[in-house]
């Protein structure tokens, strides 16, 4: 009994902070999502309108567009990062073990302020004086501004995202490669397996769980992408790069449509929590292993 009460002292401060800055705000947003509430109508609590905000959401073309944009960016970006990251990891973990000292340098894009990464994107892709933008124009691949064209703006976001996150995938896979057990390789050698066979039959299955965690974290991140898009295109041109978080931001902090914005937030949150469940299981399996 005594030890039971004792436990509370360890978790109480965190619990209070968690309640105050996370749970109460979250529940506040949840109640807003059932109200007609905007800062332009000065009634502070708004009017209860049931599921009207959610009904509106179902028929909102821009909302579907934001999910479409998110997937159009996420799928190619993550495939690219997975493949390039695997290549990098094999390189680092293979012949050049000493290259581990290069890990911090490679992780610079991943950990550097996303706003600055966005700035790097804007400047290098500038058609007039940017190193890459100029080159693309000269090669005739793009006419004018990459970010001003709705066909190429999303490609630019994918490219910058890949620049930022490939090292992250690579570093996790490198750690995985360096932690692989030796025995299966000896067995494969005894059986006379070729290098390619060994890679697909031994390395990939063993590496798979590392892949799962890296990819899941990236998928969840894709729903969070905001800073880079905000700096590079602000969701434009039109709505060509308006991913879900950007769309929710527009409705809340641009239009001050708090009721509808909250409904959007709740839908995004449900998506995230489903994805996190998979991530949680993957991490759990791992930490107990």
């Amino acid at each position, binding site marked *: 009994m005594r030890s039971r009460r004792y436990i509370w002292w*360890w978790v109480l401060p965190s619990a209070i902070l968690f309640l105050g800055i996370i749970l109460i705000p*979250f529940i506040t947003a949840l109640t807003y999502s059932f109200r007609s509430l905007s800062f332009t109508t000065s009634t502070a609590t708004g009017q209860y309108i049931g599921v009207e905000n959610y009904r509106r959401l179902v028929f909102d073309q821009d909302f579907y567009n934001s999910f479409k944009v998110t997937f159009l960016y996420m799928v190619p970006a993550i495939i690219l990062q997975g493949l390039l990251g695997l290549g990098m990891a094999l390189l680092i973990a293979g*012949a050049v073990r000493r290259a581990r000292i290069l890990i911090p340098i490679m992780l610079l894009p991943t950990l550097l302020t996303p706003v600055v990464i966005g700035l790097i994107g804007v400047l290098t892709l500038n058609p007039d004086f940017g190193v890459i933008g100029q080159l693309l124009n000269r090669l005739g691949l793009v006419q004018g501004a990459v970010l001003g064209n709705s066909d190429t703006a999303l490609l630019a976001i994918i490219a910058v995202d890949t620049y930022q996150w490939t090292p992250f995938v690579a570093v996790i896979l490198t*750690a995985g490669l360096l932690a692989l057990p030796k025995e299966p390789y000896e067995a494969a050698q005894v059986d006379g397996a070729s290098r390619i066979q060994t890679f697909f039959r031994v390395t990939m299955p063993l590496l798979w769980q590392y892949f799962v965690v890296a990819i899941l974290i990236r998928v969840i991140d894709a729903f969070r992408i*905001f800073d880079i898009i905000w700096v590079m295109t602000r969701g434009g041109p039109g709505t060509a790069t308006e991913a879900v978080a950007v769309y929710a931001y527009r409705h809340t902090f641009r239009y001050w449509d708090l009721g509808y914005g909250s409904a959007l*937030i709740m839908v995004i*949150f449900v998506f995230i929590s489903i994805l996190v469940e998979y991530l949680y299981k993957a991490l759990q399996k791992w*930490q107990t292993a």
Partner: protein
Amino acid sequence: MANNLNITSAARKQASAHSRRLLTWISYLLTGLLVVIFLFPWLWVFSLGFKTRAEIMSPNIVWIWTPTLNNFIEVLFVKGYWRLIINSLIVAVSAVTLCVVIGVPTAYAFSRFPIPGKESWFYMILTFRMAPAVVLALPLYVIFARIKLLGTYGAPILAHCTFTLPFVIWLMRSFFDDVPKEIDAAAMTDGYSRAETFFYAILPLVKSGIVAVALFSIIFSWNEFLYGLILTSDATRPVASQIPSLIRPHGTLWGEVCALATTASLPVAILIFALQRQLVRGLSFGAVKG
């Protein structure tokens, strides 16, 4: 006959050694290329901070120039943006100190005590860690406006705790889990209370973990954009949140923007190198013990 066989196998061995050495050189080359690819855009943008406006806007990219510090002097001191750096520092250090002080004991409790619904709590902590800032930004804005916290340092500090506290608890638990429970038991049979065991026996063992968690949290807080933008006033805004507003459709002072971005990136770069050994673990939520 046997002699003959030996010769061919030696030759084969030599050939494979050759091809292996070639492979090593190719991988060195590729690794070098990768480093260049990842560093080049970064260095190029930072170089703009040391160029004059004419050199930046030149249609033929200027590769050799006399570096100037004018952009740095102008943006940091004449326009007084050095304050933004101080704001970032105040917000990051306060939020991280608060979360480490209250989060580390909680992580220990999660690692050692039979807390009811432990796994559900952990799942919830991770969910909120991974939710986009926009989810909590709106209700926090409304609540902070009501309790007159908006525009003070308190607003971004508390808002940054929304991702720092879950991160500290999650990652520190994995560090505590690495410490065998027998050490606790031994300390307690020696007559230490639970709290004394925690402070004198366990904390020293996870010291490097705490440092890593704190440095990581400082990076995340330093990099945060949305909360810092909407919950602050001009006087309390952190640097990352201010940079995008300096980019205008026309007449952006790119040299100054780059100078400010360079200054803001330096602390992060230093922390990354300080973290070295713990980078992988922090990035993968403790899953990969690199």
